[in-house]
């Protein structure tokens, strides 16, 4: 293990940014979100949860695909610009780090998304342990250890130092490049102490032990037809807040924008909560907000696990718990539907 004094971090950032696009939790107009670092950026590693998750780095909110150029009656196609830059994302928490694995299931397995795949391959993930989990965290319910985040590199901030430990080949490669900034750290006790502190807090958290046992593929119809959905969803505004802050939501829409000289085709995040989600010629597949609400949570808790060996499409980050305008969230769904009644 190695360590670096927190005050030396800007130099480290600067060095990494020379060869990579460096993404960090950056403070901007009151909010902290992962963004590309530059020397004027205000980095906030203490922020437990960025407003949006870290998925932007691989799956940005909008991604240009092809561009058609129309000249009179002639049409030509411009090849898309591929994301070939090397990237480092720094400060990812355990929950977000797990979300990448879930996104891989959608974007890499079966039908790869080249943009995603390329970004994923080009990126080294530096994770950071959560020193101060909060009341909405329930990563433990999904077996995630916030104290040992296991990215390409794992880090911990203890007593003014960032402790650094590579886990993978990519991590070792990055470590080799930056090793001059670090001092060797032979004593693991500081990190271990913090880890046990974190685990102790997490054990106390109210949502850490929510019961997911009811959400199994064989209960699909029972859950789907539950009368409780109506009351659960009645306050839902149909906005996309939960979806857009969620690290595992992966739906997107493909749209065309008419440029001056042709058409720019792009894909952008979509939300199953939106009234026009998957709208086709005949109308909406899910015309009521209750149906849309049910879809989101059924997908996360039943459909996705059915297709992916029982893995839930939720990492317990708690963003939706804290950000829903009307305070609806997945935990309320799990608790209400999970009740024996």
């Amino acid at each position, binding site marked *: 293990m190695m360590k670096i004094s927190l005050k030396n971090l800007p130099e480290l950032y600067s060095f990494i940014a020379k060869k990579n696009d460096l993404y960090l939790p950056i403070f901007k107009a009151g909010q902290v979100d992962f963004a590309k670092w530059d020397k004027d950026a205000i980095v906030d590693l203490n922020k437990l949860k960025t407003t949006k998750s870290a998925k932007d780095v691989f799956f940005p909110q909008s991604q240009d695909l092809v561009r058609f150029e*129309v000249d*009179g*009656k002639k049409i030509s196609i411009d090849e898309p610009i591929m994301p070939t830059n090397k990237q480092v994302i720094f400060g990812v928490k355990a929950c977000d780090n797990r979300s990448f694995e879930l996104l891989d299931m959608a974007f890499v397995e079966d039908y790869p998304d080249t943009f995603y795949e390329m970004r994923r391959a080009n990126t080294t993930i530096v994770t950071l342990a959560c020193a101060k989990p909060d009341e909405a965290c329930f990563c433990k319910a999904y077996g995630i250890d916030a104290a040992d985040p296991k990215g390409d590199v794992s880090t911990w901030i203890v007593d003014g130092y960032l402790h650094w430990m590579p886990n993978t080949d990519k991590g070792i490669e990055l470590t080799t490049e930056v090793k001059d900034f670090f001092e060797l750290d032979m004593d693991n006790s500081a990190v271990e102490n913090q880890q046990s502190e974190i685990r102790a807090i997490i054990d106390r958290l109210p949502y850490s032990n929510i019961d997911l046992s009811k959400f199994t593929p064989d209960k699909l119809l029972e859950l789907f037809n539950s009368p409780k959905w109506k009351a659960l969803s009645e306050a839902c505004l149909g906005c996309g807040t939960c979806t857009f802050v969620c690290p595992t939501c992966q739906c997107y829409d493909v749209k065309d924008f*008419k440029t*001056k*000289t042709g058409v720019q085709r792009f894909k952008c995040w979509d939300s199953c909560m939106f009234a026009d989600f998957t709208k086709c010629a005949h109308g909406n597949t899910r*015309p*009521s907000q209750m149906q849309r609400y049910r879809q989101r949570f059924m997908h996360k808790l039943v459909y996705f696990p059915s297709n992916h060996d029982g893995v839930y499409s939720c990492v317990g980050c708690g963003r939706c718990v804290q950000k829903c305008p009307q305070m609806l969230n997945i935990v309320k769904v799990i608790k209400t539907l999970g009740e024996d009644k």
Partner: protein
Amino acid sequence: MKKIGVFVCWCGSNIAATVDVKAVVEACKKEPNVVFAEDYQYICSEIGQNKMADAIRDYKLDGVVICSCSPRMHEATFRKTAEKAGLNPYMIEVANIREQCSWIHKDIEEGTEKAIVLARTAIAKVLLNAPLQAGESKVTKRALVIGGGIAGIQSALDIADAGFEVDIVEKKPSIGGKMSQLDKTFPTLDCSACILTPKMVDVSAHEKINIFAYSEVEAVSGFVGNFTAKIRQKARYVDTAKCTGCRACMEKCPSKKSLNEFNAGLDTRPAIYIPFAQAVPNKATIDPNACIKLKTGKCGICSKVCTAGAIDYEQKDQIIEREYGAIVVATGYNIINLDKFNELGYSDCKDVITSLEFERLTNAAGPTKGHLICPSDGREPKKIVFVQCVGSRGLRPCDKQYCSKICCMYTAKHAMLLREKHPETEVYVFYIDVRTPGKNYDEFYRRAVEQYGVHYIKGQVGKVIEKDGHLEVQASDLLADEQLHIDADLVVLAAAIEADDTARKIGTMLTASMDTNDFFTEAHAKLKPVESPTAGIFLSGMCQGPKDIPDTVAQAGAAAVKVIGLLSKDTLKCNACVASPNENMCNGCSLCATVCPYGAITYVDKEFRIPGGVQVRRVSQVNEAICQGCGACTVACMSGAMDLKGFTNKEIMAEVESICK
């Protein structure tokens, strides 16, 4: 795929001199959807039109763009041609490459480049154009005339003579208006009553004319061909069916102190009255503000003397609702209040009078039986001063900015008549300009000067003060460059005229536009002088602006012809470019209706199928016969449910995109 044809006009050298028309044609050919493009010297010519019709047929065109002069010039021509060739006329777009391109740019390159952009923009629009069909609405064959003065009488008679029903609404107890108060009329000096009263009798006898006297229009709704008016018939407290007009009640009425409006307040009348001898209808009316019975419950003398039993103290206002196809506004005028002109002493000196009062003082049926006397003490005036332009042509708040038009002539008339009847009187007329355009008008004025010896003095009166029973008039004589001090017996002020005070209310009711002076605005100052911009509303007489009797009668006749033209149609073709709501998106919020100047938008509750059932929603509907297509509603509409045919959001945005390419 839509097939578009483009024509580029040379307009001789008008366009071809600064726009390379061949280059425009070539550029248009490259545009998607364009299957045909050609240039020609004059597309508006018969040959040009034939070429266009041929191309529409040969190439089975879905839309045509013509790059030529302003659409205000030939759009109608091109549309007609398109229609003849079997293409919906609204599938035509005109790119204005003359007025807005070739005529203002000198550089060929610049002109050509802009012409191509304009052509491309028109192509972009025509691609989105939809064929439009103008709707039709039926016409109610009855006209409403608001105002029963000479203007209203003339319009009503002309319309009725053509065989259409006419209702006249007059707020006073009798029709006749201002003209009935006049003594003689210029320039022929016939007696006003002698020429007016036969017309009033004609009106009352005409089987197609219905008079609502002592009535006011309360509300008007609807649109051209289909107006509905609410008329309030005020309580006369006299059953007009029974009243014989014998005037016995007037004699016996104990309350005789009311100012007589007909004599310009120079004498008094009883509380129950018939305003003048030839009144139509010749029926009594009780003035509720003066009647003792109505005010205190005691009296009832008129009821006792009325042998016909016509008096009815319990009578109430009645509201009558009638439908009309056209409305003639003939609300007339008043003279302005002279309280603000204290330098001329009107409020302080009894012997300073207005011209209208002078008319009554010289009229044989007036308060003095036509004997001209000073109102203060009854002496015969020896020296009389007329002042013109009082309150006209000024910029102060109390002034009217316009020329009242009739004062020069009636002042000459007054002066002339005075000198004729009383050659011993000295008559001075103070003028700024003497304006006498009109047949035999200047001759008339010259006669006053040359034959009758009226002293016309170029200058104005500065002040009038009463001194020892006389009026001291201080004035300037600009040509002699001296200040005059005239010791006069009577001063007559030619007060400015103004629109009647009810005009604004009626204008608002009719949504007919008015100018800042409350005169009704004509649809076009030169080419549509008797129509209001609001379809189906016509203007007659002074309500449109100052004018004398011949002009009024001429305009009244013209308005009548327009009404007849309208009423003789069974149906009307509506504007095709009207607002149209998409009810699937309509919120029913009423914002569009609040900005509609025509009241064209109404709401209905409508059933819509939604997943799992039926929902009732309030949605807007546009009456295409009323909508004039301004588009105010389209911007007030949040959801974009309201759009304007012919100028849709998409079409305009396509134009924007094309220009900014």
